[in-house]
């Protein structure tokens, strides 16, 4: 965990050092960008118990600002010696990205920047087995399936590069902070779709997007 956090902060530091905020008046094509997160597919290929399908739409207002909406579906199964847990549900995030590349150095469609997201997840969770042992013997129980929601924030840092004309690839590292959960503290979710695990105050995450960009017009950049 500490290593991932250190990695994230070192990367964002490099990003901050490399980029300087540019003038808002620079002419850059407005564009819609549609993306799909293949990191979820990769994680699912490595671990069948985690599923995450996620897409995003971002609106490039100018060279600096991007409005972003991300949404998807996730499910999670986990089992260990004393409990078996599962959840599934939908999530959405809304936020903004700030491109730190100078437009005069990169007039194209590349991106190096940071962003902020607010996330909402609506999902079901169930603990299908729960065992607990003490002086009185072994307790067997379940926590039945219930539906609830969670709110969270994400701090995002990442890059996107134009692989082919209007086709972008890029990654983002995310630090996720749980704001609240309707399940309460006693039944806190092990994992939240769209946010990942809830242990600790801030949890890391990663996205790896392949995106298709649709410029609105071909005016000067």
């Amino acid at each position: 965990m500490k290593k991932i956090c250190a990695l994230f902060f070192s990367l964002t530091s490099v990003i901050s050092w490399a980029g300087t905020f540019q003038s808002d008046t620079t002419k850059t094509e407005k564009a819609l960008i549609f993306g799909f997160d293949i990191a979820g597919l990769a994680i699912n290929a490595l671990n069948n118990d985690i599923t995450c399908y996620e897409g995003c739409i971002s609106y490039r207002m100018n060279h600096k600002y991007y409005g972003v909406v991300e949404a998807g579906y996730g499910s999670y199964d986990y089992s260990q010696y004393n409990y078996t847990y599962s959840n599934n549900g939908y999530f959405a995030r809304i936020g903004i990205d700030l491109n730190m590349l100078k437009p005069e150095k990169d007039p194209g469609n590349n991106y190096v920047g940071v962003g902020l997201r607010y996330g909402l997840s609506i999902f079901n969770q169930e603990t299908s087995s729960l065992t607990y042992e003490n002086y009185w013997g072994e307790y067997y129980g379940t926590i039945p399936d219930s539906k609830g929601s969670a709110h969270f924030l994400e701090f995002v840092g990442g890059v996107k590069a134009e692989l082919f004309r209007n086709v972008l690839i890029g990654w983002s590292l995310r630090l996720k902070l749980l704001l609240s959960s309707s399940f309460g503290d006693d039944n806190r979710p092990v994992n939240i779709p769209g946010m990942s695990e809830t242990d600790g105050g801030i949890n890391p995450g990663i996205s790896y997007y392949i995106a298709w960009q649709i410029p609105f017009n071909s005016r000067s950049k």
Partner: protein
Amino acid sequence: MRGIRLSAGLIIVLIAVCSGCITESCDHPGESMAVITLYETDNNETTVIDSLTIYGVGMDDLLIYDNSKTGKIELPLNPASDCADYVIVNGLIHDTLKITYTATHHFISKACGYSFLYTIGNVSYTKNRIDTILIINNSVNPSDEENLRTFF
């Protein structure tokens, strides 16, 4: 911009490397036990009992305290039931104590799983050696807070 393209591709390597960095361990806070302090009725001061034996009713082959010298008792509650019954032997005199409660599961962490918290509703007891038992704090959790105060 070659650097951006390179970094956009190389992150997969970083994911693979860092996937092994996260380790999970259970730093267990301990079981929620009903904490009972011992007092003398005569002077309303804490006391230490030289020889205290405690076991659950029907569990006399598994002692919680075995002729122990102690001034504080910690009793495990039964999450599978809404009450727990104990035999308390002070010297050679036997008393029984029934604690009635509600049990609530409580998620600790992914590595630890679930524990239980309890809310004490009532206590009943025999008065062979025990004089009075007061409920001081009905919330039983892994902390060391006093829940019941027993006067002998």
